[in-house]
């Protein structure tokens, strides 16, 4: 009889199915994708791309210049637009052959003292790099503006000047608020609030005008409307350096090549833009030495630093690889120098693809790849030669977890980094490339590699 037939408990099934669905849909949270894809490979098939460079000046010393390099196998047409801080503009078109490079010096083409450069490219694969200070400072051009920007480590001490170079690449007037952090706290200068940068214009913010005679100044920029390309420029007793900055504070940072040699100075400068103190730990990996972690507490809304060189706990033994961890998201930079000057460089952000090119013609004192993950990854290196197609591809080189390897060590024995262009890539975005230019003492000129913009 039907009524005696044993049936599956419907209510139980319904509840189980609903619960399973609820758990399943709750376990995986959907996030709103907010970042544009970036990287050299992504831009190769682009309909059009753009590069924006700022921080170029015509001041003391050799003026800054921009070098464009076409990584693609086809020629590219570049629409160049230079604008100075006084509003004068220069436009031109450049045809860039495959694997060709071309430099421009804005101070020659346009009047003014500092410049913003915008290049619109039909297609993708073109990268740009700024050099200044007698080829001792480098910073990559950007392919997009940002809405948030952070940097720290600027000095406004006597003999030094620090300013932010801002270029508005869009047709929208940008509006920003700037906050300044120092060792004694933070300030939001009235003149830096609601600051409007008209469309396609270049301007500068002089930090020394608001924070006088202060070391280790941090900056946070919040672009309320539109977007901006920003570069921090530090002039330390005549030594110019660029700080690319970061789009957000982070809890981890990597500095692959930090010098520990005698007569050099190296500091990790930290700004804490949070309301809570940040407990910072810097782990130092230095050849065969075991170095105790360096710790630091950074008060809310203030800056502080860790001395790496000289440091009695860290032997002078060449390049150290530093990993910084913090209890709160912080802004970091590396300040290296000698005697009376320091040069700033931003930490390298982990990524999948990097371009290593000797834009200065001086070669590199150190070029390393660091695996920031705990697992071994496979790294591919492609060598590009000007006016030729790819000549060498090295694939499958293993880099262990949390280790740093020299790029040359991954290449055939005869390879050099001088006048060469390499594309270093991995399948996972856990790669960091560290570059230092030749200097005396060694390792005090740190540059940031191109990551494709």
């Amino acid at each position, binding site marked *: 009889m039907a009524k005696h037939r044993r049936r599956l408990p*419907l*209510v139980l099934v319904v509840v189980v*199915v609903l619960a399973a669905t609820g758990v399943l*849909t709750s376990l995986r949270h959907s*996030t709103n994708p907010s970042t*544009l894809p970036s990287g050299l490979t*992504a831009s190769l098939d682009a309909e059009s791309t753009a590069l924006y460079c700022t921080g170029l000046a015509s001041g003391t010393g050799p003026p800054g210049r921009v070098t464009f390099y076409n990584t693609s196998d086809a020629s590219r047409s570049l629409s160049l637009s230079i604008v100075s801080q006084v509003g004068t503009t220069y436009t031109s078109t450049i045809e860039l052959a495959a694997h060709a490079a071309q430099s421009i010096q804005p101070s020659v083409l346009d009047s003014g003292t500092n410049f913003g450069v915008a290049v619109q490219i039909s297609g993708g694969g073109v990268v740009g790099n700024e050099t200044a200070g007698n080829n001792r400072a480098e910073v990559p051009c950007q392919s997009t503006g940002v809405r948030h920007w952070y940097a720290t480590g600027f000095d406004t001490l006597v003999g030094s000047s620090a300013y932010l170079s801002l270029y508005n690449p869009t047709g929208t007037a940008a509006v920003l608020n700037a906050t300044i952090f120092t060792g004694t706290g933070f300030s939001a200068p009235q003149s830096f609030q609601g600051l409007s940068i008209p469309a396609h214009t270049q301007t500068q913010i002089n930090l020394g005008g608001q924070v006088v005679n202060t070391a280790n100044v941090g900056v946070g920029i919040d672009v309320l409307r539109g977007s901006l390309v920003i570069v921090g420029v530090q002039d330390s007793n005549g030594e110019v350096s660029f700080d690319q900055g970061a789009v957000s504070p982070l809890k981890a940072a990597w500095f692959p090549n930090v010098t520990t040699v005698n007569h050099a100075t190296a500091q990790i400068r930290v700004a804490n833009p949070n309301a809570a103190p940040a407990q910072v730990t810097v782990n130092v990996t230095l050849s065969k030495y075991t170095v105790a972690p360096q710790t630091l507490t950074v008060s809310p809304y203030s800056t502080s630093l860790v001395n790496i060189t000289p440091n009695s706990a860290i032997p002078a033994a060449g390049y150290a690889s530093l990993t910084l961890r913090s209890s709160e998201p912080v802004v970091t930079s590396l300040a290296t120098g000698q005697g009376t000057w320091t040069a700033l460089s931003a930490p390298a952000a982990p990524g999948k693809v990097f371009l290593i090119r000797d834009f200065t013609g001086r070669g590199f004192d150190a070029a390393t790849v660091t695996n920031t993950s705990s697992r071994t990854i496979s790294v591919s290196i492609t060598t590009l030669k000007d006016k030729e197609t790819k000549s060498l591809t090295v694939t499958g080189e293993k880099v262990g977890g949390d280790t740093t390897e020299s790029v040359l060590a991954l290449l055939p024995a005869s390879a050099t980094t001088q006048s060469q262009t390499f594309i270093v890539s991995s399948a996972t975005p856990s790669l960091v490339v560290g570059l230092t230019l030749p200097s005396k003492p060694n390792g005090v000129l740190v540059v940031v590699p191109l990551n494709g913009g």
Partner: protein
Amino acid sequence: MDSRAPAVVAVIVTTGSGPGLEATAASLVAQDYEELSLLVVANGDVSHVPERVAAVAPNAFVRVLEENRGFGAACNEAVLMVEGSAFFLFCHDDVRLEPDAVQLMVEAAYRTNAGIVTPKFVAYDDPLVLLHAGQTSDRFGVVRDRVELGEIDHGQQDLERDVFVAPGGVTLVRSDLFSTLRGFDPLITLLGEDLDLCWRAQVAGARIVVTPLAKVAHRETIATGERPVAAIGTRRASRTDLRRRHQLLVVATGWGRRTTVWTLMMLMVLDVVEVGIALAGRDTDRAGAIVGSWRWLLKQRKGVRQRRRQLHVLRVLSDAELRRLQVGGASRLKHFFVTLLREGYDRARGILPPEEEVEIFDDPVDVGVGFAAAFSEDEEFDEIAQSELLELRSRPSRFMTTFRSQAAVVVVVAVLWLIGSRDLVATHLPLVGRLAPLDSWWSTWRHYFASWSPNGVGTGTPGMPGYGVLAFAGTFVFGRMGVLPRLVLIFAVPVGAVGMGRLLKDRVSNRARIIGAFAYAAMPLGFNMISQGRVDVLVVVAGLPFIVRRIFQLMDVAGFRARPFDEPLPFGHRGWRTTEAGQRMVLIMLMALVTAMAPATLVVVGLVVVGVVVARYFEPDHDNSSRHPGRFLGALVVNVAIFLLPMTFDVFVAGRRALEVFGLPGGPWSAPSFMLLLRDVDGTFGSSWWGWLLPVAALFSLVLCKGDRRRVASKVAVIATLTLVLGALVSRHWLGSFSPDLDVLLALYAVMLASLIGLGVGALEHDLRDVGFGWRQLTAALAVATMALASLPLLASFGSGRFDLPSTSVAESLSALSPTTAGGYRVLWLGDPSVLPTSGWAVAPGLEAATSMNGLPGGATLFTPPDSGTSDVIMEALQSAMAGRTVRLGELLAPAGISAIVVMNSAAPQLAGAESALLHRTPGVLTSALNNQSDLSLDLQTPSVEVYSNSLFHGIVAATSTGSTKLTPIFTSTSNTGPLTAGSTVIAGLAPADAFALDVNGKAVARTNPNTWTPIYSVVSSTPSPSGAISLHQFPLNGLLALFTLGMWGIVWLGFGWIHRLEWLFTGRRRRVSAPEPKGENDG
């Protein structure tokens, strides 16, 4: 050897005035049982008793007790005076025995080996009315009678049987059993002795039997309050106090250890609930009685332990065996809810007196006849009325059971609804959801027949059937198209509620139907759809209950096909509509109408059919003739596709976008959580805690239903589950491009929830009666409470007068859409599909793209075919920008004449304290991409909307001037006609390119580049004062297709008997007078 009958000693306990003492004694004297002795115990100051007894029973012994010790103690005292008797017959002093009563009871005792025998009790004044035929009890000691109140004695109870309680009045007890049990318990001075004695007797293994042939008339002076008396030890305790404490004593001592603990725990919970209810109703006496009973029990703990020890020695039956002799459930709780449902709260908790009963609460205690005052006699307080049928018959239920009350409730709710929608009648409707202003009646018909529509960059696909439905509906409002959305906003939910009532018809009572309908109206979805202006979903809300009912009917879901369909008739014949084919055609036409407005309706129909099939695996129907559900569903879909031929054509040519006809994927990051889906919420209404009430009530309903109701409920539950699962997957975008409109799915879920609630009410009315206490009663209690609570937010929603429909919209607030240059232009609208005020195509999950020409969206782009065709150029450009592959989006969009890009995050602006709207953010990468474009500038940025202007805009129709490649707009936004420049090149952003032609001075100009999607024309430089006009040149295939479809609708409609009726028109003969048209239950 003489054979003598066993000796029986009748003990009459009398107290006070003893109004029936003489009659009682006389009836015992008149017994035909020869070995009957009579002992009268005068309890207290009753000096008149010997004389009165002597007058009617001179041989009787009279024992006078100096003080009133209560009935039990008096009996125990009497027993001490007697030796050698086989039976004791304990009698009240207000009974009258039939002459053969003792004889029959003794015979029954021997025949059945019973320890206790009870007679049938009838009313003292009217022996035709039954009082008791034995009683039973639940595990909590609550006594239930076996007869209905006022039941007439037709001999229907004259069957000798075992009972659990022998009610006081006249009780025959075997003397050895009485001795073994040590008589009545001295702790129980009065009220409850009968239950206690019988309980202990059964624990000791004795049977209790009712012998209905022995008839006793009982005056029940205690029940009528005729004799106010008091006993020693009762102090100021009311009868209620005594009853509760003695009842508790019996429960605390009558079970084994473990059962006692468990039972007392349950009883404590019930008592706490009852105390709460009593206190809520200021019934302090009741609350005091309950609390006092526990307090008294604690005081008597020594006596309790002693009783337990004594009973443990006697115990023969285990607890499980004893439970089998009792009734299941908690009688008091059941009675409460039955009364609550039937007669309201006040009556249930005992404030209002029953109409046909005498109020007997808290009467002074009748000491002398305590045995008569068993728990059973105060039914209003302590027991379930076992006479539901009798009560229904004799006492009209007060809670929505009469037509008048039901009509009154419906009218009140309807009036409240109209009050709640007062602002929707005439005030401005904002441009949100699908509230774009409709074109005129004639223009709407034209959209249906049009060869070209302006969606995207233009399309030549057939017009969507929704235009036909709107135009047809516009006929009934005399072309006042603006009235249609208002009608839908105001009446969709009420019409849906009516449909819900129809869906539940014949399955449940009218009261349950009304509650189900109200539950449907109270579902958050309807309110949220009104507040979001989702007219398309509201049409589904209105029509879906009707569709579901017909599907159930055609699939022969249990009880939905009240009778077989009529015999098959030829198409067009009168009565064809009531045949199965006709009913199926009605369903198809109904589905087609709703699907034309919201194509996802087809998906929910599929869910219903699949749900029924799946549910039959769990709960098979008795007999289901629908053996081919797949074929049935296929037939429905195919026929609907035929009725919506233009849309079907669009779907077939749409390729990978074909599935988008059912809906566009929303952003998973802004989709309602699963918890909100469970509450049927996609919006703000119902997102708080009370949103759980209706789903919880529905779940309770599911577990309460039995029988056919359960079969229907199982199907409904399975459909609801499938709907939720699909909705959850769709909202997370786990099904790819198959993203049926989530709100349409929620409409089906709402139908299912409301159906369950209606069925649940039916279960409360019928199914709950037949089961004992347990989870069902608790579930019922919660269900009733949740249903009652769920109606409260409904009232609050009436406050705004427009169900929170915004008074303004983001789109209307945009004043900068019109470019400064002349010429026609398009606006590109980007946003979540639930936010945009017009329909378009999907670019990515959470991002829909749609265009409007020359300003805000209007009636011409109300429906968008799934085939994007040439408009893919817009989607591809956007996808390039979002992938970081272009920084020249403005340049890519300029050929389409797009002057501005509007990115909407919400449909209405956020006005603090005045208006709130849900934020459905577009993918963040879109904003990043648009900010990166070198040729777009951000003109406006608010949390609700961002507007970008295209610096390379050159109008929909543009031309180059001689010697220049710069494009400038020509013509105007209202006309594609105007002066041209000789030697110029004209580019029109109109697709399909081959459908348009440029006439210069009346002569057609050939396209110069056939490989572009934009038609390009060159104006000959020698043309003097050229004047041009761009016009559409296309064979009206779409119009013919629409006409064919319309004709088909007409023919099928004629098939519902009109062909037969109009036969004379074609044959010239007079119509025959035919038999009355069959009209059955299945008639829609």
